[in-house]
C-alpha cells in the first residue's frame, strides 16, 4: 500500500482507512513490537504499544502522507521507535515480571552459553536458518512456542492440528533443532 493510495482511501472514509490499515499491517506491527518488548512487557503492554503505533500512523495519515512509496517501511520505523520508547519505560519499572508459557519450556530448552563478543545478529541468522530447515509445520510451531510464547492450543489453530499433535511434533522438532545447532557449534 502506498501513501497515495492511503490518501485516496482517507477521502472516502477515515474510519474505513484506519480499519484497512490495522487489518493489513496489524500482524506486522505486532511482530515488531513483540520483538522489542518480549523480554519486559506483558501481553497488555504489547497491545497497548501496538495501539500507540497505529494512533501515530493515523496521525501521519491525517496530516502528512502523500508519498508514492510503500508505507511499510514508514510503519516499520514508527513501530520500532515506539516500541523502543516503551521498552525504556517498562525496563525502568522495578519488579517487572514476564509471563511464561504454560507448557514446560524449561524442559525443552535449556540455557545456552553465548560469548558476549559473538555477533548476535549472525547467531540470530543461523538459528533462524536451522529452524527453517525443520520445515513446516515444525518451524512455525517452534517459533510460536519458544519465541512468541504461545501455548499448544493457540498454535494448533494456526497450523490446523490438534494441540496434542502440536506438542508431540514440538518435542521431536526440538530434538532435531538441537542436533542441527550442535552441528554448527551451538550447544543448548
Amino acid at each position, binding site marked *: 500500500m502506498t501513501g497515495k493510495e492511503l490518501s485516496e482511501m482517507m477521502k472516502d472514509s477515515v474510519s474505513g482507512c484506519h480499519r484497512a490499515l490495522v487489518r493489513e499491517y496489524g500482524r506486522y506491527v505486532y511482530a*515488531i513490537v513483540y520483538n522489542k518488548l518480549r523480554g519486559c512487557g506483558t501481553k497488555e503492554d504489547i497491545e497497548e504499544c501496538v495501539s500507540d503505533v497505529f494512533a501515530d500512523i493515523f496521525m501521519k495519515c491525517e496530516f502528512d502522507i502523500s508519498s508514492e512509496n510503500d508505507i511499510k517501511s514508514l510503519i516499520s520505523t514508527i513501530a520500532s521507535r515506539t516500541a523502543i520508547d516503551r521498552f525504556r519505560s517498562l525496563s525502568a519499572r522495578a519488579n517487572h515480571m514476564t509471563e511464561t508459557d504454560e507448557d514446560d519450556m524449561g524442559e525443552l530448552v535449556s540455557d545456552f552459553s553465548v560469548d558476549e563478543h559473538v555477533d548476535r545478529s549472525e547467531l540470530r541468522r543461523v538459528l533462524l536458518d536451522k529452524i527453517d530447515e*525443520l*520445515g513446516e509445520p515444525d518451524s512455525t510451531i517452534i517459533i510460536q512456542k519458544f*519465541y512468541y510464547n504461545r501455548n499448544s492450543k493457540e498454535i494448533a489453530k494456526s497450523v490446523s492440528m490438534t494441540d496434542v499433535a502440536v506438542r508431540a511434533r514440538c518435542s521431536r522438532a526440538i530434538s532435531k533443532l538441537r542436533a542441527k545447532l550442535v552441528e554448527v557449534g551451538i550447544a543448548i
Partner: protein
Amino acid sequence: MKKENLFDILEKAEDESMERLVSKCPEISDEELDKILDMSERKFNMKKRDMNKNVQRENGITVSGVERVKRPAWIKPFTMAASFVLVAGMVVGTVALMNKGKSGSSDTDKIAADVFNDKDALKALCSDAPSHYDKLEASCTISYTRDDLSITENEKVEYNSKEKYLFMDEREDHKEPYNPEADGETYFIHYLYKNKSTTISPDWNWYEVDTLNNDWDYDNYSLIDVNGQPFFDPKPIFDPDTTYLSSSQSLLNKDEWSITGTETICGRECVAVSQESDAYKLNDYFDSETGVLLKSVYEDVNNNEQTVFEVTDIKYNEEAHVTAPLEFRKMIEEAGYEPFYPDGSVDPKVACNLDFLGIPNQPFTTAAGKKEVVTTTTTAAEPEDITTEPVTTETPSDDYDIDDVVGQWEYQISDGTHTAGENPVYNGVITIYPTAIYEYTDVNGNVTEGTVRLGYEEIAGSQLPKVDFYESTAWSFGGYYNGDEINIGNGGMSRLVRSNGTTSTSTYIAGDDAFDAVSNYCHKKYDWSAAKENPDIMYVTKGNVTDTEYEILFRSYTGAFVYFYVNNQSGNCRIMEENPITNEMEETGTINIFDYMNE
C-alpha cells in the same frame, strides 16, 4: 559469558531476521484487531484533540468547562453478568474437583456394557485402554496434507502396558515445495522406560538419554500418543486437571460427540465417533474391545482431509513382540551409536548411561570392538559430585552375579543404641529384579528406584562381594553381600535382610543355569559339525531378561535364530522360530530345562 534462553537471541532483530519472524507471527483474529483498532482510534482522537487545543491556544482561543462522559446504561448489568459467570465457573470447578474420583468404579463397570450405543461405556473403555491388554505391537501411518506441504510418517510402536516400556520407530518423509531445505526423510527411535526417555538418531549416529520426572504417564504422554493421536495410553490426557486437553480427545466431553456406526480396521471391529466444530470435523474409530484408537481423520471446514492417522497392523498380548529394555540396550551397543548430550557441562557417557535398561551378563558381541561396553564395574566415570562413593572394582567371577541378590530384602536400621542386627528397626523393603533394577519402598510407602551394580572391594587383602545401589547415575548406598544379608557400612547401623519366606533360592532358576540347560539342549538337538571349521557360525547366547523369563538365542549355521523363553520358576521353556514364509514368530515346541541341567 552469560546464560540466557536460546530464543532470547531473536530479540532486537534487525531487518532480514525481523521479516522472518513476522512470517511466523501467530495469526491475530479479527476480534483482536478490532480491539487494537478501537484503542488506536481513541488514542488518535485524543492526540488530535490535544493538537487542536494547542492550535487554538496558539491562536488565542480558550475553551472552558468539563466534558461530561455518560456511563452507558448497559455497563452495570454487563459487569454483574460477567461476575456471575466468573463465580459460576468457580463453583462448577469446585464441585467438579470435589466429585473427582468418585465415579471411577461405576465407569469401570460400564466397560462391559454396549460400547456401540452407550457413550458412557465407550468413554470408560477408551479412557483406560491399556488395562485391556498387556502388550501391543502396531504399525501405523500419519499423513499431514496442506496446500504447500505433505508429510507422511510411518511408525512402528511396541508397548508393554504392565511393565511400562515403549518402543517407537519413526520415519518421516517431508515434502515442502517452497522450502527444499526441509525436504527429506528423518528417522528417530524412541524408548521410554522407567523415568528415562531415550532417543536414537540413526541418521546422526547418536543416542540421547533424558531423565524425566517420576511420573511415567505424565512425562511421556506427548509421546505415548502417536503424534497427537491418543493411540494407546490416553489416561493422562483424560485427566481433567491437565492443561493439554486436545480437541482430538474427542470423548472427554460426551456432549460434543456422537457414535455414528461401526467400521472394521485391521480386522478389528471399531466404534465410529464423530465430532464437529466451526473449525474442523473429526472422525475417530476405537477398537471396541480395547478402546485403542485405530483411525482418526481430521478435516478442515471445507471437508479436506488434513490429518489422517491409521493403524495398518496391530497385535495384542501373546502375538505382540515388545522390545525389552535389555534388547534395546543391545540394539544401541551393537550399532555403535555414540552418546549425545549437547550441553557440554556433563560427560555424555555419564548422562547417557544405559544401566537403567539392565546390565548384560556378557558383552554384546558383534560391535564390541567398536564401542566400550558398560559392565558391572563401578569405576567407570561417575558424576563429579559423588564424593562419598567407595571405590568398587570389577572382578569377573562366575560364582557371584545378579541372580544371587534378586528378590525382596527388608531394610533394617539401628534403634540408636543397638546394631541393626541386635534390635532391627524396619525401614522399608527393597526388591531387586533380574534386570538389575531395584525398587525401594520406604516406611511411608514412597517408592524410589534405580540400578544395582555388583563388584568387589578389597579389604585387608580379601575381596569382599559388594552391592551398590544407584539412583539414576548417582551412587546412593552400598553394602557387603553375605548370603542372606547385605551389610551397609561397617558399624552395623543398617543392613538388608532377605524377607521371610520370600527368598528365591529354593525355586528360582539362575540365568546361568537356564543358559547352560538350553545350551545342552541345543548341542543335543542340532548338528554342530559346521561349527567345527568356523566356531562363530553357530552359538547360543543370552537375550533379554524379564522378571519371569530368560530369553536365550540359538543361531544355526543357516543364520536362522531359535528363541528359547525359560520361566525362571517352573523351568518350562517355549521354543519360538520365525516362519520363513510369513516372517512371523511361531511356537515350535516346549521343553523343561530341568531335563537338561547337569548334563
